[in-house]
Every structure is written in structure tokens, then in C-alpha cells.
């Protein structure tokens, strides 16, 4: 450092406090991939912390966070202690992780992750933000394995906001991990791999599956699966578009479908509609970290850029399991996820200088274009423009494509009324972040978990481009909606408190103009310390 170098005490440099805890290897996600990664890493003697948000607090479940639970959980989820036992009982791998010496944290959210780099020179080390229902804290790590899985892509039709419409991944979590699913009689949307697995799981639990439904005219999965489901009494309805779900006090009571060849409608009785159309990788933490992400139509949407299925564009961040890509919009499956987790751990260990013999990669591939399939659903549902697709901010498809300002602003001005998506498209391709800001779609408390993908797909339909050409709307920390008083740093470091300024603490920046260059200048600089609140 040169002798003349000054130091700005108001800046962030030197202020980010040491983390509350440290681990050499942090694994986010306690599914098969994450648990296998943690066990593999711990066996090599590393210090490993495995964090999983399940059991998720009831407040977040009601917001369809992190999965599209659709209000179909029983009261059992209210008792967190019981749920922890249930989750452990349902996952032998988590038990094994405990035994392998992994520091397992359940019911813990990872709401952010930060690594030094461009724009973050002041960060002393890589940090992850954790929280439970009461407080937040920071964990320092050397290596991070994201095993955050995949989540459901939701689609809106009339009634989808009522209890009983949910995602396939959420159904799987509620049935297998939570044992707290309250539905009995199901209709499943989709006929691809994901829908087939969902139907099989439901049948094996003794649930009644009325039908599997597709907007496409052809069954998307293996034809033998169609025969198998039909034999189990499941009706297979192709070329049918969901129109509405009539509902009563307990939520939805049926699903009305329209046969798009004939226009005829019929209503199937059911208490649960499972949207099993496609999964998409949970890339939010990687995006917050600044890792490279690219459209991956065969992997369910946007996926991490990776050379070998475990490395990311950031040297200390790795991926395992479905976050690397949901093949054909379905999960890679438990066995493949475990293998993927082990490989990620081996790559991490190698990067830390351990001698490891990496296993040969067994990447699960699918030639099914999940994004095109999502697009087919989005296009079919475009026929009902008045359906609200952003539940939090109550934005309909039409409001989105008309770039209509939100209702609380009152009726649009005459000039505004002439503006729509087409007028934005004259200036450049549809940009989801820009349209979000104008319509408020995706801006609500569920953090766009229910609408992010369908908004992008709707924009692609309306502007006639491939869905991969709509730029990914950015994810921002906190990636879980946490109360101010939980997220808050109540033990703020004295350095931060002492030098806190409303703005940048530049002397003289707020000096009244007339005082500049006069003897009053010094005086007002003193008065207006701490930013001047302009």
C-alpha cells in the first residue's frame, strides 16, 4: 500500500464481522444428493455442516415456500419437534450423516451466500447467511456444495389459488418427508416422467388418482406407463386444458377441463390437483453468489453452467443433485442423486488437496425438452387471459401482456392505456425484470416461487420468442422471506455502528449550495454529518 493511501472509514472495508461459526465444507440441502455429499466429505475427515430447511415453518409453507405446497398439509406440520423426528425417520441418509460426524442442522434456512470477488472486495471470506424461526447468523465456509434440488413450475388456471392445487415436488415432500398430506382424491397434470412418478407414488399410498391430464395430444412418457396407469384405473385425458377448479370451504372440489378438439367440458371430482408438468433447478443461491447460469431446456429451465456436473463458474462453489439440472423436467432420482453428491464431495476434497479417486460420472440425461413442454402448457393456458398468474400482487395474464400498472394506482392515464408489451418490444426484447417493475408480477412475498417461470413463459408466448430467450430475472438475498427482526444483526459490530452513515459520508456533499466556497462551508459540513437525509 502506498504511503499516501487514505482509508475511508465509512466504507464497508474492514467492517464485515467474523462469522458466528465456521465450517470447512458447507452443504445446503439434505436430500439424497446433499446427504451423500456430506457423508462422503466427512468420511475423508473434513469438517462438514449440512443444512436443510425442512421442517419448514408453517408461515412459509402457507406462502408456498420453498415448494408449491398448495395448502394441502395437515395440522401435523404445526409441531416442529414431531416433524424433525418424522424427517429423520424418513431419511436413513440423514441418520447416516449424523453418524459420520456431519454437523446436521434441520429447520434451518440458508437465505444468502456471498463470496469475495468483483464488487465484494471487502468481504473477508466466503459467508453463508443462515436463519431459523427466531434469528439469523453467518457461517464462514471454504467450500460450498449446493444440493438445493429442483422445484415445481406452477401454472395458473381459474381456482389455482385455492387450497388443493399444488406441485409434484411438494406432494412428494408432504407424503414422504412430512407424512402430512391431507388430500385423498387426485388429478395429476402432465403425462411426462414427473407425472408418471407422481401417479405411481400416489397409487402406492392408496390415494385415488382420477386422471392424468395433458394439453398435448400425445402421452409424453413411456407408452407402457400409460397402460400401467390405465390398468390401475387412472383415466388418461389428452388434448385437455384445465379451465377452472370449482371450490368450497375446504378448497378445490374438482377440475373442469376443456377438450380442445371439441370444446366440450367436463368436471372431474377431486380434492387435489397436482401440477406435475416440470421441475426446474433451484439456482437462487448460485445466482446470488454470482455464479454462471444458462438456459438449459432439457434440464427444466435455467441451470448452473458446469463442465462436469459438479463444478460451477466459481472455484469454491459446487453442485450436486437436481440443482445441476432436472433431466427432462423430472428428478434425476435417488440413486443418481447419491452418486452426484459423492462426486461433488470428491471434487471438493480434491480441491482441498486430498488424494481422491473420483468416481466415473454417471450423468443422467434426457432428450426431453422440458422447456418446450412447459411452453406448450403456457400456450394452452393463454386462452384465459383474465386468470391471475401472480397471486401475491394479483396480476393477470392480460395485465402482464398489457404491461398494466397495478390496480392501486387507479385507472391508467390515456397515454398509459396505449402502452403494452408490444410498445416495449419496439425498444428491445422482453425483459422480465423490467416488466416486473411495471406490473409488479413476481414482486410479492412468495418471492415469485409461484409465478416466476410462468411469467417468463407468458412473455415468451406473447412476444413470440423461445422461452430460453427471455433473460432470467435475477434472484436476490434473502432467498427466503424472513422477518426484519429475524434477519436483523442484533449484535452489530461496534465498527459498523460507529461509522454508520445514511449515505457515503463524503465531507461537504450536503453543504447547501450557497455556502460552498464561503466561511459557512465548514460549519454546515459539521452539522450535516451522517448523510443529511436528502
Amino acid at each position, binding site marked *: 500500500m502506498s504511503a499516501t493511501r487514505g482509508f475511508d472509514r465509512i*466504507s*464497508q472495508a474492514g467492517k464485515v464481522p467474523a462469522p458466528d461459526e465456521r465450517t470447512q465444507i458447507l452443504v445446503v440441502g439434505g436430500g439424497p444428493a446433499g446427504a451423500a455429499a456430506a457423508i462422503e466429505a466427512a468420511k475423508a475427515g473434513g469438517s462438514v455442516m449440512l443444512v436443510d430447511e425442512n421442517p419448514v415453518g408453517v408461515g412459509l409453507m402457507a406462502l408456498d415456500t420453498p415448494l408449491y405446497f398448495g395448502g394441502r398439509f395437515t395440522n401435523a406440520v404445526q409441531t416442529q419437534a414431531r416433524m424433525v423426528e418424522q424427517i429423520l425417520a424418513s431419511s436413513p441418509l440423514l441418520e447416516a450423516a449424523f453418524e459420520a460426524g456431519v454437523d446436521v442442522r434441520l429447520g434451518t434456512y440458508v437465505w444468502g451466500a456471498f463470496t469475495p470477488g468483483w464488487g465484494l472486495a*471487502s468481504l473477508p471470506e466466503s459467508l453463508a447467511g443462515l436463519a431459523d424461526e427466531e434469528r439469523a447468523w453467518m457461517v464462514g465456509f471454504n467450500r460450498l456444495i449446493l444440493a438445493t434440488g429442483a422445484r415445481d413450475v406452477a401454472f395458473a388456471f381459474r381456482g389455482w389459488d385455492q387450497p388443493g392445487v399444488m406441485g409434484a415436488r411438494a406432494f412428494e415432500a408432504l407424503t414422504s418427508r412430512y407424512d402430512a398430506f391431507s388430500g385423498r382424491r387426485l388429478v395429476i397434470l402432465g403425462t411426462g416422467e414427473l407425472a408418471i412418478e407422481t401417479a405411481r407414488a400416489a397409487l402406492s399410498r392408496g390415494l385415488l388418482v382420477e386422471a392424468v391430464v395433458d394439453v398435448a395430444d400425445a402421452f409424453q412418457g413411456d407408452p407402457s406407463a400409460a397402460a400401467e396407469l390405465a390398468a390401475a384405473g387412472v383415466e388418461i385425458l389428452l388434448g385437455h386444458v384445465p379451465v377452472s377448479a370449482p371450490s368450497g370451504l375446504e378448497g378445490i372440489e374438482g377440475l373442469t377441463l376443456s377438450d380442445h378438439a371439441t370444446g366440450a367440458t367436463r368436471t372431474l371430482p377431486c380434492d387435489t390437483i397436482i401440477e406435475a408438468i416440470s421441475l426446474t433447478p433451484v439456482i437462487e443461491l448460485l445466482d446470488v453468489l454470482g455464479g454462471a447460469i444458462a438456459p438449459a431446456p432439457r434440464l427444466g429451465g435455467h441451470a448452473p453452467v458446469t463442465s462436469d456436473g459438479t463444478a460451477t463458474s466459481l472455484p469454491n462453489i459446487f453442485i450436486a443433485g437436481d440443482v445441476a439440472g432436472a433431466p427432462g423436467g423430472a428428478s434425476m432420482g435417488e440413486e443418481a442423486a447419491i452418486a452426484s453428491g459423492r462426486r461433488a464431495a470428491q471434487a471438493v476434497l480434491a480441491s482441498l488437496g486430498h488424494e481422491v479417486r473420483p468416481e466415473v460420472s454417471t450423468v443422467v440425461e434426457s432428450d426431453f425438452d422440458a422447456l418446450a413442454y412447459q411452453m406448450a402448457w403456457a400456450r394452452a393456458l393463454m386462452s384465459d387471459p383474465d386468470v391471475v398468474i401472480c397471486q401475491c400482487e394479483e396480476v393477470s395474464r392480460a395485465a402482464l401482456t398489457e404491461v398494466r400498472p397495478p390496480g392501486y394506482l387507479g385507472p391508467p392515464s390515456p397515454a398509459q392505456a396505449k402502452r403494452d408489451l408490444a410498445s416495449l418490444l419496439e425498444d428491445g426484447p422482453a425483459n422480465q425484470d423490467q416488466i416486473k417493475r411495471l406490473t409488479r408480477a413476481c414482486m410479492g412475498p412468495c418471492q415469485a416461487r409461484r409465478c416466476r417461470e410462468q411469467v417468463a413463459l407468458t412473455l415468451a408466448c406473447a412476444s413470440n420468442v423461445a422461452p430460453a430467450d427471455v433473460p432470467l430475472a435475477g434472484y436476490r438475498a434473502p432467498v427466503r*422471506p424472513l422477518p426484519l427482526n429475524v434477519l436483523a444483526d442484533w449484535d452489530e459490530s461496534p465498527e459498523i455502528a460507529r461509522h454508520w452513515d445514511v449515505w457515503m459520508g463524503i465531507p461537504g456533499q450536503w453543504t447547501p449550495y450557497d455556502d460552498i466556497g464561503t466561511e459557512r462551508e465548514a460549519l454546515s459540513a459539521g452539522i450535516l454529518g451522517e448523510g443529511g437525509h436528502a
Partner: protein
Amino acid sequence: MSGASVIVIGAGVTGLSSAWWLARSGVDVLVIDKGIVGWEASGRNGGGASHYHSPLFHEEQKLWPQMDELLGYTTEYRRERVIFATTEHHLENYRRMAEICRGLGYRVDDLDPAQVRSFVPLAGDNVTGGIHLRFGGQANPQRTVQAYAWALQDLGGRVFQHTPALRIVTAGGRVSGVETPRGVLGCDHLVVAAGPQAEALLAPIGLRLPLAPARAEMIVTEPAPLMPVGGADGNGLYGRQTLRGNLAYGGGPHEWLDVDALGPRRRPSTPILRNLAKRVAELLPRGAHLRVIRSWAGVVENTPDGRPVLDRIADPGNLTVATMSGVGFGLSPATGHAVRDLVIDGRCSFADLGKLTLARFKDTPADWRERQGWLPTTHEQALAAMAP
């Protein structure tokens, strides 16, 4: 490829407002931006519009209440502001600020804690007092950016997005155009309103505009019921309750950056968002249960004295520079007016801008950023500098 009579580099609020004002005077104007409108600081700020220290202050106050009507689009402008304290120390500061504003001829009321709570129901028992600015206010930055762009287009002006200015082209001592990937766009006058990138654009034509970019960040909560006054801040924070009800607040430590000609590579928010959350929870304890749903950061350019540059350059004589640092959103209606005046009339009709010229930096040493400690600084460098 043909250009326009006036080209503006930068579709932030400064460039767009300037272009809109020029178009209102019948000038053929084209705004070019490297990305989409308002993607940088102009779409990422606090929306505050009460800059009593600026020569443009009176014009700012005059224009904001009319902007929705003038533009034909809503900006979500909400009038007035309550700044309140939870410590005696802050309160003293606010009262002095009130004195300065009164001295400028604006009404400011002193508030006792109960009055603060009546305007700001989410405030708590910890309030020590506050001030009520019967002027100023705040708007929605993202809606305002788009309003400027659309209003400009409604008057026949044009916006080219995804069109970076690569180089300012000069001929015979004057600016003749701007080189872009679409070719050279010709112009009679050029306005540089390129935020942090203005320095790199101007340097090749021999003009030195010393700038240090810094990152500033904000957090936003889920909506709460609307309070009588949305512009309610204090406790080291700036921000507002939006018309939708969300609480959006920023403040606290910034980070110095090196931004190259292509613009910021990232705009990361940081663990400082927890310190913001703490201060919002302290400021508005009755809203402490509200969920934080996003954070964001934006990059702001700073001159060595932290003040704007708003200047029609002497040589080349057909170039105007507008870089607004941390105050550009609120001032934008007035900045655009000033730029319009500078471009068309050569001088600002409503304010003295003599202290905002580029020339004031002619003696600024080359290593000024290093001397001021305004370079990107690692944790280790900071610890070394902080050691006694």
C-alpha cells in the same frame, strides 16, 4: 446510420429527463443505452426528492408535483416527508436540517413523539421526536424511468436500448457523433449522462472527469398497511413506504469499485442487509415482523467533492456533461430542464450552476482516489489501515 440533432448517452433518469425536456422544445433527440432503460442507479435508488443543498432544489420542488401530468404517466410521487429520531443525537441533527430548510423558505414542523406516531403508525415508543417537511417527497424510481422514456417517445424522441456508446467521435474540434455497434450515429450536440462510465467516455477526447464508483444497497419488505406519510425515515436510513405498502430502505456502508467501460460486472448486495434490517426494525418496531423479500444494490459515481457535474463544456463547444452522483433521482426533473437550457441556450435559466463545472477538478491529483481511500479495499488492507 443517421443519428439525431442531439444524442444523449445514458437512459438513466438524467439522460431521459434531459431528452424529454429537449423533445418538449421540439429538438430531434435520441437516447442510447448499453442496456435497458433505468437498469443502473436510476432503477435502484430510494426515490427521495428533497435535495435542499442543491442549486436545483427550488426547481425540483416546483416540478415534482406536476410531473405525472407533464409526463402523462404516473411516477407514484407522494408528497412530504417525516424524518424522526430514536436518539437525542439524531433529533438534534434533524432539527438543524429543519433550520436550513426554513432558511430556504420551506415549511418544516417540529413533531413530538405522539405526532410522529400519528403520521407513521409503524413507529414505536422509542421515538424521541421528528421533523415534518411540508415539501419534498418520493417517487417510484422504476416507474419514473419508464415514464420519462415513454413521454419522450410520445413527443417523437427515440431510445435505442442495447446500444453502447463505444467512442465519442470528434471532427474539427467539435463532437460529430458517437460510435456504436450500430455504426456511427451523427449529432450536432452530445449529452453525456452515462453515470460511472462518463469518465472513460470523456478521457479519449481529452476531458478529465474524475469519478469513483461505489455500491450502495437497499432492502424491501412485504407490504404493510399504508401510513399517512410514506416518506418516513431516520435512524441512519433513507427510504420510504411505497404506494403498494412495502418498506424500502437503504443506508450504511458502501463499497468502492472499479467499473470499466462496459459498466458494473455485478451489483451484489451483502451481509450488510442484516444491519439494514436491524435499523428498519428499530425505526418501525410495529413493522418488525414484516418479511424482507428482496435486497438490491446500485452503483453510484462520485466526484472528488461528492457533488454533481452539470456543465456545457467550452471545448468542444457542443458537449454537455451531467453526472449526478447520489442525488440524481430526485433532482432529475430539474436536471433535465437545466440540460435543456445548456444545450439550447448555453446557460441555465433558473439556477446558478457555476460551482458544478468540470473545470473545478483541473488540479485534482492523478492519484486522488488512492489519497481519499476511494479504491476497492480488501478486508486485509482495511485492517492494516485501521491498526493504530
